[in-house]
């Protein structure tokens, strides 16, 4: 029998949550795995919404001078599509991976601060709900003094200043109503969530590593999480302050970004992209990590140039802070700045190239098992290379002044963020599916998903390069028939629906396989990293005792030796060892203390949207309510005894 020490149910002040199943167990959980799963589902839900928004955009653009959406609706849709996909879909899906895998990969029992982890999840949820509540409560209209022919929007009013919120267009004068306030404050709340998790992950990686897990033995995914956390920790404060300024401008009549009052709209661009460019790497680095796990596993070869890949990842993260103004080449910046940022942007292609070549080196000479996760990873390389190369054309500043703000850029960053990040994420979702659910996904459906998606993806975003070069600007509600852009736009729209179809296949596979899939066993892939050395689905306590890591790809080296030819030979006792591991994984031999569930993260987080509404509607009672919830949350949190105190009590008893 397992010996889990039950947390003490009664503390000094508040009753501890005690449900182990059912909805309350999820609401009060501090288990990184449950939080990871919740992150995943929530993010996927928002991914679907963002996808539907994209489809609406594509219907509108399918033919020239179309009238399917009004200008206001179109603008709201592209703003929300961008905001949703970045802040509510890809970032939290990455967070889902971080949460679930990070402690497993470094052999820890949980993250460094489990309650803080729950807090960031709930802040994310409340931030997302707050942002989307704009469809119910928000208002938007024509700029002050402007006229509209009809009602603003049949969909409810959503932010319409673009996900980048360029000032002064997103200011109160040109975007009146409350919708843009929802955007500014919503992002602020979501930023807090990411910031908190960044502290948590950095600390976890540094301090929760198991015995022998030196930094240079960590899996690449862990390394990329580490890099991403730094990017978050150092870039989010900048946007937080910039969003403060926006909120002040919109609510309290300041003029930080308004020229009339001496403000500077270009300063917003600097602050936004100081955050916004690291953000790009925040979105893509997790996928780099995932791919670096999948490729070696299914090539049956170690990762080629592990140190190079790690350093390149940090190189990208570091240089990523120094290239922000390449988003502003057409903006009011000097030629010197253009040249400088053009060069720094070129430089970032080097570590990215190093990664790509190392991945190619990994599969070269391997024994490639072309199953779904591997296909997505290979597809990732192929698509990301295209995105990377079009990225290099942006660093050629004069050429970029032709391409910027056109569909060429849209094509570029979808190749990077969809062909890159999303392909990597899907690869990861299939790869770790058996670890999370203990079941195997359906390979045939998985392959259909892949082929539909790669065809749909290229149909959608490939022609966009051409459209951009032919002069189709971004964020364009209609385009004139005379511009001769209709044909390719139609193809693009068809492609978008093929992607939608592929997502349906994915969902069917997921739902079906999670219930009816065959049992996966704990190491279905003959994998390399230690998260596969524990049973699937992962037991609540992860490792029944702290593993001791002796090398990079420790789990592989437990199973395989190398012969004189350098080829792997299965160790003699490997099967027995695995059986032993599984047995022990399910039946821990020592006492296990798990972090206690808590009500307070969700209570604390629930205060933030009320503060947001209070700022927008200038309602004091809401502000008091919000503050009260935050105070109750923090007080309860602070007075809730820690696990160590339980331990002491138990020992005393």
């Amino acid at each position, binding site marked *: 029998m397992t010996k889990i020490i039950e947390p003490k149910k009664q503390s000094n002040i508040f009753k501890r949550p005690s449900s182990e199943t059912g909805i309350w167990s999820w609401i009060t959980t501090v288990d990184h795995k449950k939080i990871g799963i919740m992150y995943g589902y929530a993010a996927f839900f928002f991914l679907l919404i963002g996808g539907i928004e994209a489809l609406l955009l594509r219907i509108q653009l399918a033919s020239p001078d179309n009238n399917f959406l009004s200008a206001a609706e179109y603008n709201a849709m592209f703003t929300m599509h961008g905001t949703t996909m970045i802040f509510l879909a890809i970032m939290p899906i990455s967070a889902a991976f971080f949460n679930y895998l990070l402690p497993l990969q470094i052999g820890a029992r949980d993250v460094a601060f489990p309650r803080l982890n729950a807090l960031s999840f709930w802040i994310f949820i409340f931030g997302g709900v707050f942002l989307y509540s704009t469809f119910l409560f928000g208002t938007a209209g024509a700029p002050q003094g402007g006229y509209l022919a009809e009602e603003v929007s049949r969909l409810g009013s959503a932010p319409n200043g673009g996900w980048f919120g360029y000032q002064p267009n997103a200011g109160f004068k040109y975007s009146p109503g409350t919708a843009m306030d929802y955007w500014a404050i919503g992002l602020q709340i979501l930023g807090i969530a990411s910031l908190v998790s960044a502290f948590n992950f950095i600390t976890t990686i540094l301090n929760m590593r198991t015995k022998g897990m030196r930094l240079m033995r960590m899996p690449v995914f862990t390394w990329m999480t580490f890099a991403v956390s730094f990017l978050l920790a150092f870039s989010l404060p900048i946007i937080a302050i910039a969003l403060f300024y926006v909120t002040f401008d919109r609510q309290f009549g300041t003029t930080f970004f308004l020229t009339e009052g001496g403000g500077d709209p270009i300063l917003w661009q600097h602050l936004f992209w100081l955050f916004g460019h690291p953000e790009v790497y925040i979105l893509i680095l997790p996928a780099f990590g995932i791919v670096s796990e999948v490729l070696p596993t299914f090539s049956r070869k170690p*990762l080629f*140039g592990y140190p190079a890949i790690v350093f390149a990842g940090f190189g990208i993260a570091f240089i990523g802070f120094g290239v922000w103004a390449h988003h502003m080449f057409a903006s009011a910046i000097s030629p010197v700045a*253009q040249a400088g940022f053009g060069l720094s942007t070129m430089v970032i292609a080097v570590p990215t190239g190093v990664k790509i070549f190392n991945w190619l*080196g990994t599969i070269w000479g391997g024994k490639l098992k072309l199953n779904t996760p591997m296909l997505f990873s290979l597809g990732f390389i192929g698509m990301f290379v295209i995105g990377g190369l079009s990225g290099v054309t942006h660093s050629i500043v004069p050429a970029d002044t*032709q391409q910027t*703000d056109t569909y060429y850029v849209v094509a570029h960053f979808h190749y990077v963020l969809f062909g890159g990040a999303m392909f990597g994420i899907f690869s990861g979702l299939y790869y770790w599916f058996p670890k999370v659910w203990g079941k195997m996904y359906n390979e045939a459906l998985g392959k259909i998903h892949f082929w539909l998606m790669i065809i749909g993806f290229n149909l959608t975003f490939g022609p966009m390069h051409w459209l951009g070069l*032919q002069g189709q*600007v971004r964020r364009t509600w209609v385009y004139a028939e005379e511009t001769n852009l209709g044909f390719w736009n139609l193809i693009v729209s068809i492609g978008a629906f093929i992607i939608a179809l592929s997502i349906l296949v994915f969902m069917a596979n997921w739902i079906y396989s999670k219930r009816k899939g065959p049992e996966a066993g704990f190491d279905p892939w003959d994998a390399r990293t230690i998260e596969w050395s524990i049973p699937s689905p992962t037991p609540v306590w992860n490792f029944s005792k702290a593993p001791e890591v002796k090398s990079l790809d420790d789990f592989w080296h437990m199973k395989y030796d190398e012969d004189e030819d350098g080829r792997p030979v299965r160790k003699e006792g490997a099967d027995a060892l695995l059986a032993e591991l599984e047995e022990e994984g399910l039946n821990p031999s020592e006492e296990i203390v798990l972090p206690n569930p808590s009500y307070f993260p969700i209570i604390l987080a629930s205060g933030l949207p009320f503060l947001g509404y209070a700022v927008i509607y200038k309602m004091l009672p809401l502000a008091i309510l919000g503050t009260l919830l935050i105070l109750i949350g923090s007080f309860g949190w602070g007075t809730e005894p820690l696990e160590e105190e339980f331990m002491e009590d138990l020992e005393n008893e």
Partner: protein
Amino acid sequence: MKLFKSKKIFLLGFIFIASCIEDAPLDSLSPAGPYARSIDELFWLTFWIAVGVFVIVQGALLFSVFYFKERESSPDPKQIHGNNFLEILWTIIPVLILAAIAVPTVKTIFDLAREPEDALKIEVIGHQWWFEYKYPDFGITTANVLVIPEDQPVRLEMWSNDVLHNYWVPKLNGKRYLVPGQTTYLNLQADSPEEFWAQCGEYCGLSHSKMRGRVISMTESDFAAWVANEQSYAEKELPESSLAAEGQLVYLNAGCTQCHVIDGVWDVQGDRIAPNLTHFANRSVFAGAALKNNPENLTKWLANPAEIKPGTFMPNLELTEKEINALIAYLGTLK
């Protein structure tokens, strides 16, 4: 092969080819002036290098997938952990390639930014959602259609009246922002007399997509004639009882003068928030170049401007059909 015999495929193929050949007026790949050409050359240089890299990387990828695919007979591969020589090689080669591109890039950046000698200065002012042009040397104010002499550099001094805009004539040069409170500059030069399309690149609110423009380059003599005409005032005296005269009354009484100026009519010259209409009939387009200048379009526009350009600052003046017709007749006289 049956597939290719079907008519639909043929039709699609035809449309495909047609769409590639047909001229796109905003095409950034068919430069018509030295500035755009220098950008174009740089783009193609980078493009072909990128194609080279693309072919190598995708080739290696596809080769690996087919050649190293798991087969029943395939043994477990050698465990290779890396190769320092290769790492250095694929770090240095991209560096060298990029350095090679960097040199012309930096040179072109500064070439494009330099103010050309004896350039014609034109001020471009962005409004939601149209471009205003001023020729300080000639005292001309116009809108939507920028007229430039051929084969002569033009220096645009640009700013915005409200939000950020982005001035773009793809065949003549790249984009440059129009920023409130700051001046930005852009050089244009066209090889020959031609009409070019312009478009606002930066998202600037509801009707961003309809913030378009035309740039017309003219021979030197045509340009001189155009300048002379623009400098003159429109006819003040219109034949009484003509439709145009009625239209002038509508113009004066319906509220148009709140925002528009027709030099020499009713009020003094001056800046107003809406386009200067003094030589309206000479412009091929109106309403931020979203519409061609013809009576049908004018009727639609005057009946309800916000229908055409959502968010527009031109109100619906509730004109009757008769008033609209008169107004159109009057606008037609503004040559």
